[in-house]
């Protein structure tokens, strides 16, 4: 892209200017800490639903899932289904009670029931750990993506990305962020649907089901790449492969190879799969940047209405992702095979959707896709920064360090926190630039599922939960999930005879739950359980 593709580059720059303008506009509506943290609780459910959609759909959803389907087939769709399922869990188990019992942060819920600085500090620490770890893959992904798209050096792209993120938070707070996330959510959905419609119209005679039937005869590129030396391609008048010529030649030569809809080819064994989908299902219930969005609306019913809009948007988006992934596989078959043969699997995954955009609509569509990718990365990153700075300022600065501080001092502390956390995440992104982004993201879901998710759910539903049980659950869940995650990073096959899986949730979640329940049964401080549960479940 860059100056070789001036139209696409202009679209990207215009979208970035619009994002910064919306943040600056949001500043006019941010005079108190309540405005900065949760937009004064004045966001409508519809706007919040779209903002949650934009916040949740990171670059992994927009580029990664469709790109992975294009390479491996239907097995890669499972991550998308897990991303969707998590919202059903959040809606049914947590959204309403969370809104009714908290004010700004996850710590509010726990402190609202049990009180105490130790819980507040532990919740803040867990929030910052999860938030920073989740921020790193966003910056790493953005760095690699824009290095590929713009041809800029990795260091330059991560600095630019981190600068824009920090600027958006400092300028606008939650009001500007909400509007940006909502606009970015719409851009993401429109961009994915645009690819779906254009692909169906241009290559499949306007029939979207032709994409599925064609996929059932196509060997996924990851399967085909091993047999390419034996594939005989019929000559074409143009002297080059048409989009379907190579795929048909592979199928003609190897009838026994699986097709794009054959399940069980790229998925892991059953225990790894259960651990992954458990982590995905519960992970969102423990992600602070998602949970904070429930505090931006008036009441529990608006929180649930917003979640419904997000769920409908995600269902449409992730079903479209399946069709776009298959279409990408068939339309870009020769290019994907070429990248796999060159050992560039990561590049093939990340670049498949931008390349499809270029193929279908030239620079204009490429620009929209690049803007969509930037939107995905920015909205998620800014949401993370807001949730972390709110926790630092509200829970630690105002709650522990300086309870008598003024609103302005807390706001300044929050904005300083945004700068510091952005710099920390930036440095970590430089250090971890060669790490697999998907592993970093999965780690965050696993840690969130093993810490906040069980603690929050039991806090709003179980009268017998005790303060000591909460602390035990958070500590045990955090330790177990971190140990198994870093064991995975270090290629350790087992710990004390226990096999290390791709996601720590299968060990972290039961360990946290058992700790919470056992310690709660042995201790007595249930906090103000009756008053808290009455507030959490009021209509």
């Amino acid at each position: 892209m860059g100056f070789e593709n001036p139209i696409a580059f202009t679209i990207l720059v215009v979208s970035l200017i619009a994002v910064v303008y919306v943040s600056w506009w949001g500043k006019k509506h941010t005079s108190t800490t309540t405005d900065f943290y949760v937009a004064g609780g004045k966001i409508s459910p519809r706007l919040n639903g779209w903002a949650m959609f934009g916040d949740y759909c990171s670059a992994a959803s927009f580029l990664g899932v469709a790109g992975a389907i294009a390479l491996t087939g239907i097995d890669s769709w499972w991550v998308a289904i897990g991303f969707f399922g998590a919202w059903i869990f959040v809606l049914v188990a947590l959204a309403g009670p969370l809104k009714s019992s908290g004010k700004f942060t996850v710590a509010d819920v726990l402190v609202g029931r049990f009180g105490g600085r130790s819980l507040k500090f532990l919740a803040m620490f867990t929030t910052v750990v999860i938030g920073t770890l989740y921020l790193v893959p966003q910056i790493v992904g953005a760095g690699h993506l824009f290095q590929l798209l713009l041809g800029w050096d990795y260091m330059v792209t991560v600095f630019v990305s981190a600068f824009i993120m920090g600027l958006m938070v400092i300028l606008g707070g939650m009001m500007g962020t909400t509007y940006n996330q909502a606009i970015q959510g719409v851009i993401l959905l429109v961009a994915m649907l645009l690819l779906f419609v254009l692909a169906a119209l241009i290559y499949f005679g306007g029939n979207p089901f032709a994409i599925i039937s064609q996929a059932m005869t196509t060997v996924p590129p990851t399967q085909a790449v091993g047999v390419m030396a034996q594939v005989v391609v019929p000559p074409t008048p143009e002297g080059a492969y048409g989009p379907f010529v190579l795929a048909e030649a592979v199928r003609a030569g190897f009838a026994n190879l699986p097709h794009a809809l054959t399940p069980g080819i790229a998925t892991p064994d059953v225990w790894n799969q259960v651990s992954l989908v458990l982590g995905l299902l519960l992970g969102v219930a423990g992600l602070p940047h998602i949970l904070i969005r429930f505090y931006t609306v008036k009441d529990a019913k608006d929180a649930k209405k917003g979640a419904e809009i997000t769920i409908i948007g995600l269902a449409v988006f992730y079903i479209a992702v399946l069709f776009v992934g298959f279409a990408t596989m068939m339309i870009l078959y020769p290019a994907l095979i070429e990248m796999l043969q060159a050992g560039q699997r990561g590049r093939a995954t990340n670049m498949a959707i931008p390349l499809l955009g270029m193929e279908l609509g030239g620079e204009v569509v490429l620009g929209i896709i690049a803007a969509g990718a930037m939107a995905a990365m920015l909205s998620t990153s800014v949401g993370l920064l807001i949730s972390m700075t709110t926790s630092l300022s509200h829970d630690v600065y105002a709650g522990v360090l300086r309870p008598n501080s003024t609103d302005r001092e807390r706001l300044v502390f929050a904005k300083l926190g945004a700068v510091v956390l952005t710099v920390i995440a930036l440095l970590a992104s430089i250090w971890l630039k060669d790490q697999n982004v998907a592993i970093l993201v999965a780690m965050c879901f696993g840690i969130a599922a093993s810490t906040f998710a069980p603690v929050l759910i039991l806090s709003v539903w179980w009268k017998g939960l005790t303060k000591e049980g909460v602390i035990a659950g958070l500590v045990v869940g955090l330790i177990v999930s971190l140990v198994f995650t870093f064991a995975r990073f270090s290629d350790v096959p087992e710990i004390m005879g226990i096999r290390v899986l791709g996601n720590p949730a299968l060990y972290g979640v039961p360990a946290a739950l058992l700790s919470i329940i056992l310690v709660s049964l042995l201790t007595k401080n249930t906090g103000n359980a009756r008053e808290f549960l009455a507030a959490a479940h009021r209509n």
Partner: protein
Amino acid sequence: MTNPSTKDAAPPGVVYDEAAIKRKLGAAIGLLAIFCVTYFTAAVIATRDFRAIGQIDILGMPLALYAGLLVFIVGLVVTRMCLNQDKGD
């Protein structure tokens, strides 16, 4: 045991109703059970250990595809049921 720092957790006029909370809990567990059975079944038949089930052909397409789409449909139905319950309350 009441913590002094959190004594104002419940707003005035809001009373603790254990029966209502248990009723809500039962409804939530029911909805999640419906969804989780669909979700985990679809996830397990897509693994290499159970791919023989996932590959069963129904109307020309593998069972795993229908199971994946069913997760979205059940998820949307459960969402609506959850919001309808709120209206009932």
